[in-house]
């Protein structure tokens, strides 16, 4: 494939490609669905009233658990089929991964504890906000560290504990906060009404501007990482095929801005997802076929053919069913959240 993996034949060539595609879908699913509920948490601090915070939290309460399951699939999937990548990446990302998990613990328990608290409610408001914010920041750092690459001997990580920490990974960490904030804000536009919706619209515009600036900054920084990623984009004939991606991104961003101004409810959220997918595509083009940049490819890190096949059989059967009932769960909780929560359709039980 594009001159990579040529030493592999038959299933040993195709299975890692299929799996790379499947895991790319899983990670994209995670980034989108947990992206918006983490984004709701990022916006949480700015909400004007208790009622707003209740409604924002309620808009994601029935589904956040399923959203976070994609994160487990990301980690579990990597272990399942690219176990060498898992074994190299996890120790290399030890600090940001563990801190991300800790942050997720705080925001996860906030869902249950906040509604049971009286005097300590502020504690869980903060747990939800800071948990969401920091989980996002560390995920962004993981992304930045991934683009930078990892020292390894082909089987294990050989670098230092703080290799991940660079100005670039700090930038990607902050960028992701803007991006998830945009997803969360457009989600609130879609799921809420009244003053809250109007406020969410305003926040969405701000986060959109910040996201665009951040995307540009990250893109401009990449050539300075010395990974020669830019040659892939700017060499002929690649540039002819790839030039539309930034152009489409610019158009989507413009359309999103207009939609928010025009008072559309649903489309901004899906355009924000589109923006994310375009960025994700750009990342994929930059890094393929390395899943441990700069040197290990999906073929180098894959499990044995037998092992990949066993997992694939299960995924082929179960994943469509998973998609179906996950979609059903979203369908059950469709529509806008009631303004008076306990009186409307969102009462517990």
């Amino acid at each position, binding site marked *: 494939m594009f001159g990579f993996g040529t030493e592999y034949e038959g299933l040993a060539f195709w299975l890692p490609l299929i799996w790379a595609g499947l895991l790319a879908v899983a990670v994209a699913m995670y980034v989108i669905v947990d992206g918006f509920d983490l984004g709701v948490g990022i916006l949480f601090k700015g909400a*004007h*009233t208790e*009622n707003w915070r*209740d409604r924002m939290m309620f808009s994601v*309460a*029935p589904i956040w*658990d399923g959203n*976070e*399951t994609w*994160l*487990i*699939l990301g*980690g*579990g999937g990597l*272990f*399942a*089929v690219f*176990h*060498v990548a*898992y*074994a*190299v990446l*996890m*120790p290399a990302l*030890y*600090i940001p*991964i563990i*801190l991300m998990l*800790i942050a*997720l*613990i*705080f925001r*996860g*328990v906030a869902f*249950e*504890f906040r*509604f*049971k608290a009286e005097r300590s*409610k502020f504690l869980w408001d903060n747990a939800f906000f800071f948990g969401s914010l920091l989980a996002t920041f560390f995920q962004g750092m993981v992304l930045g560290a991934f683009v930078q690459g990892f020292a390894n001997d082909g*089987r*294990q*990580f050989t670098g*230092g*504990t703080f290799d991940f920490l660079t100005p670039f990974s700090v930038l990607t960490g902050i960028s992701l906060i803007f991006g998830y904030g945009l997803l969360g804000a457009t989600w609130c536009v879609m799921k809420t009404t009244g003053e809250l919706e109007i406020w969410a619209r305003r926040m969405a515009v701000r986060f959109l501007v910040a996201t665009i600036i951040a995307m540009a900054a990250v893109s401009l920084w990449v050539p300075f990482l010395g990974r020669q990623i830019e040659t892939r984009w700017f060499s002929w004939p690649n540039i002819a095929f790839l030039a539309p991606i930034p152009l489409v991104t610019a158009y989507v961003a413009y359309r999103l801005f207009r939609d928010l101004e025009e008072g559309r409810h649903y489309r901004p959220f899906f355009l924000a997802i589109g923006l994310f997918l375009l960025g994700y595509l750009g990342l994929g083009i930059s890094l393929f076929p390395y899943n441990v940049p700069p040197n290990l490819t999906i073929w180098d890190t894959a*499990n044995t053919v*037998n*092992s990949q096949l066993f*997992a694939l059989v*299960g995924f082929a059967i179960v994943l469509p069913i*998973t998609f179906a009932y*996950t979609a*059903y*769960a979203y369908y*059950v*909780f469709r529509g806008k959240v009631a303004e008076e*929560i*306990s009186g409307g*359709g969102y009462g*517990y*039980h």
Partner: protein
Amino acid sequence: MEFDALLLSRIQFAFTIAFHIIFPAFTIGLASWLAALEFNWLRTGNPLYRTLFRFWVKVFAVSFGLGVVSGIVMSYQFGTNWSRFSEFTGNVLGPIIAYEVITAFFLEAAFLGIMLFGWERVGDRLHFFATCMVALGTLLSAFWILSANSWMQTPDGFAIENGKAVPVDWFKAVFNPSFPLRYAHMVLGCYLTTAFAVAGMSAWMLLRHPHDAPETKLAASRRSLSMALWFATIFVPVQILIGDLHGLGVLKYQPTKLAAIEGNWDRMANMPLRLFAIPDEVAETNHYEVGIPKVGSWVLTHAFDGVVPGLKEVPRDERPPVWPVFFSFRIMVGIGFAMLGIGLWSLYLRLKGTLFTNKPFLTAAMIMTPSGFGAVLFGWFTAEIGRQPYVVYGHLRTADAVSPVSAQAVGATLIIFIVVYAFVFGFGSYYLAKLLRRGPDPVEDIRGDDLGKKPKRPFSVPDEGLEGRPGHRAQPAE
């Protein structure tokens, strides 16, 4: 003892998994308990069951939330702290863990939302279906993770190539020798954990409520106490039997672990059943041993002169630490027999008709509330410490499984985990205690379809805290 990355990683893993296992051990049983309550409610229309469902689902929601967040940590720790383990086992355990995610976690998560929030939106039947799917999800999750755990105890269906385990026969790998009985033992252990927690909390509510408390409140507690105790009375003996069969497997596949469990240094026939001893690993003997002659051999081999392996048969560096294994096992078994006693006592009181009024019994049942958690934890200590010094029995030593991370990094995260878990667990227990103090709130005798028309007192609605001002709604803080 040097606090290197290995030791710190072991402490961190032991701490985080011991913390995690408490919640699945409870929610596996609770999910099925909720399904049973809802089934009874739909079948009989008796509002008592609905009252109970709505009470226990709150307990479930808190426990499940804690289980989820502490569980995500586990799925990453294999890599962050045990990357050489991941490298060695990835071809085999990777797909097994992935099966757990796609068959169980998504099922639980998707239907949990409907179970907690969706009753009015989907109606009774679909809601019951959702509850059943959550229960099924917990059982499937236990299936895969125990398969992986059992493979580490009794690996099968694989070959070693290039220093890594590669799968040869998936059926043998998944259904490895110790898996079926371990799964039965664990699931039943979780069910009994729930049964004793439900029984104990119900007993507590009966004890503390004066008899002039609302009749429905007392009736609900009586019903849950009775149901939980029926389950315990019937299944504790079954569990003891399964445990015994499981022990035969340990004797066959992990003789050194068995020797440590028994505190047996020399291979011998006519082994006593050691009730107490202080194992001495340096002198390779026991002090202050109290035992019943020959019974140990009989329990393990079902023959009084059966031969039991000894620790001295393997070099010292092949042995697990003896005394934690020896005592953990005895604590687990002790709790099991205490449970048996409660079951028999409850049967006797039922015949006399004083089950709900006998104060000593209710007090004993209350004291037994955490007994299942204790049994599960000490059972795990026995199994996991008994597997040492191996992480994959006979193939990969724990010392060779650790990640190339610095001791400082692991030390720092370990401290963070301890502080954060103590904080979160503290508040979780506090909110659970609040729930229990309030007890089940009687609900009107209505079906889900009519709920919208009646006043409700739903759990966790944002404008009504637990300490509760029934009928009074807080004003939005505008």
